[in-house]
């Protein structure tokens, strides 16, 4: 276990309480350690559990991972109070998830290729996007642009975070600008959609990537399933807004099982950054005035 992860793990509670996990799809009782070894995929029915950001990262990077933007922490710009004040909700999720916000960003290598990595985590406020998610992602894309390394983002989000109001919505624009600047310099951006990816995230950086991969059966859509059902007053088919449905409808590039995900990303990185890109992009821009 690399140092960065050991430090991180030290903050987590002992796992005795969570030795066994029940598969929500088929009901199989899964031994926590086996489940982790299987990348949190049910051995009976292949249900893909939602993953903690650091579990994902540690399963992906070669060794070291340098977190970035970790010092960017949420404020309470709207002084929001409903049943509980917003800061109290935040603190509860910090304790529950052992995360400081809904995304972990940073730099590492995958198969020897340097990458920027952003991983959302549904355990923190349902992966909602507030100012911090926006700021950390913008910083990530800006730094990745400087370093000229490809960027991989895992999405998992219920949409914009209500408690930050319009400041949350504007993160869609902010991240878009950072993504565009990053891509306009000739860099490679790959997204992995995980369950669920909806609302403002689906309507911004989730669908601005060069290649869009999805985990199987992930729920992906703009409008929430309930909203649509209320609007049309009938139940939607089961496969509606699943990754497989989107693949058929042409919205995403591929659906990849978690067991094959790392190898797939490795190949994608190889296709994308194998060439001496710096030189060719320079010549490309130099003669754009033709």
């Amino acid at each position, binding site marked *: 276990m690399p140092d960065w992860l050991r430090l991180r793990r030290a903050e987590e509670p002992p796992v005795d309480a969570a030795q066994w996990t029940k598969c929500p799809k088929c009901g199989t009782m899964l031994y926590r350690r086996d489940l982790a070894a299987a990348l949190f995929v049910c051995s009976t029915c292949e249900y893909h559990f939602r993953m903690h950001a650091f579990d994902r990262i540690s399963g992906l990077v070669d060794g070291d991972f340098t977190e970035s933007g970790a*010092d*960017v*922490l*949420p*404020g309470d*710009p*709207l002084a*929001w109070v*409903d049943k509980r004040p917003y800061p109290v909700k935040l603190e509860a999720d*910090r304790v529950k998830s052992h995360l*400081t916000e809904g995304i972990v960003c940073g730099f590492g290598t995958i198969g020897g290729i340097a990458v920027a990595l952003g991983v959302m985590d549904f355990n923190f406020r349902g992966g909602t996007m507030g*100012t*911090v998610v*926006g*700021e950390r992602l*913008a910083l990530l894309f800006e730094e990745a642009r400087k370093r000229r390394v490809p960027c991989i983002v895992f999405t998992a989000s219920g*949409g*914009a975070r*209500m408690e*930050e*109001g*319009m*400041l*949350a*919505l*504007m*993160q*869609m*624009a*902010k991240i*878009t*600008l*950072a*993504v*565009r*600047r990053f891509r*306009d310099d000739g860099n490679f951006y790959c997204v992995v959609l995980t369950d669920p990816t*909806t*609302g*403002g995230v*689906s*309507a*911004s950086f*989730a*669908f*601005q990537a060069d290649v869009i991969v999805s985990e199987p059966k992930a729920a*992906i*859509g*703009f*409008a929430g399933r309930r*909203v*649509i059902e209320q*609007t049309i007053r009938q139940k*939607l088919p089961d496969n*509606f*807004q699943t990754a497989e449905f*989107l693949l058929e*409808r*042409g*919205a995403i590039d591929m659906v990849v099982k978690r067991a094959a995900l790392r190898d797939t990303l490795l190949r994608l990185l190889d296709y994308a950054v194998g060439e001496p890109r710096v030189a060719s992009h320079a010549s490309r821009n130099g003669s754009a005035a033709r």
Partner: protein
Amino acid sequence: MNVIVEREKGLLELERRIKELQVLFADQIPGSNVELSALVEKYGEIQREIFGTLTPWQRVHMARHPNRPLALDYIAALDAFDELHGDRHFRDDPAIVAGFAKFAGRRVMVIAQQKGRDVKEKVLRNFGMPSPEGYRKVQRLVALAEHLCLPIVTLIDTSGADPGIASEEHAQGESIAQSLYAFSTARTPIVATVIGEGGSGGALALAVADRVIMLEHSVYSVASPEGCAAILWGDSSKAEEAAEHLKLTSDDLVRFGIVDLAIPEPLGGAHRDAPGTIARVWETIGSLLDDLGRVERGALVEQRYEKYRKIGEFAVRRAGSADSP
């Protein structure tokens, strides 16, 4: 039920009586009739009382007022307008009205959301909720405006993007994401104006701009108050409470630096003087375009980046401080 329409009822009755009396005493010296003067004074009092300060929820209803000027009313006031249709692939979305326009000597591309006035038009325009095809028309015309070096003017008035089955099947999320992407570095001046409701991502898709302005009683929010209440409390009837929380008024948004300026409305709302309001809006847009026209295109895109880059409020943990925030 629109709370503004309800509150207006007594006022409109008073207005009717004042007009009657004015006709009746038309031959008298103005102000000499005591009954009429009292009525006029009372009218002014009530008007100020009702409209002097509006709660966020009342502003939401002002933004949705059935007589509020809609995008096509603004477009009708232009010197020339030629509508351009379609996404070139699948459909023309009537919720988005866009095309070449001229006003006060300026050539621009106008891209607007139109809710519809009567029932028939509302149905035709899907109540101003754009489908993915609408947003793809937008992207096409942003590229065309850029190609022809025409400034872009957007008029925003939507409760949100269409949440229907077909829209999901046609990748509504992608269509909004790519609209944001198209506006983000378009090398031409862009002014976005919220003229009514600015609802969520469906509104933002037309609001990545060099200047974002709004009418005083327009609202612009991360979700509709009803939607927010449903999301947070599973109860859309708590919309009024949500409206209080969401900070969706022009005052709030100017304070947050999200909106550059608010255009005052007549007492009682834009519909009380539609032509005047519309003229003021175009005048404001025109003067902003003139300012932006003087900025070099590269600097313009750079400034647009900075404008959005700095939006957000967060804490930064200082180096050496404790691990918890």
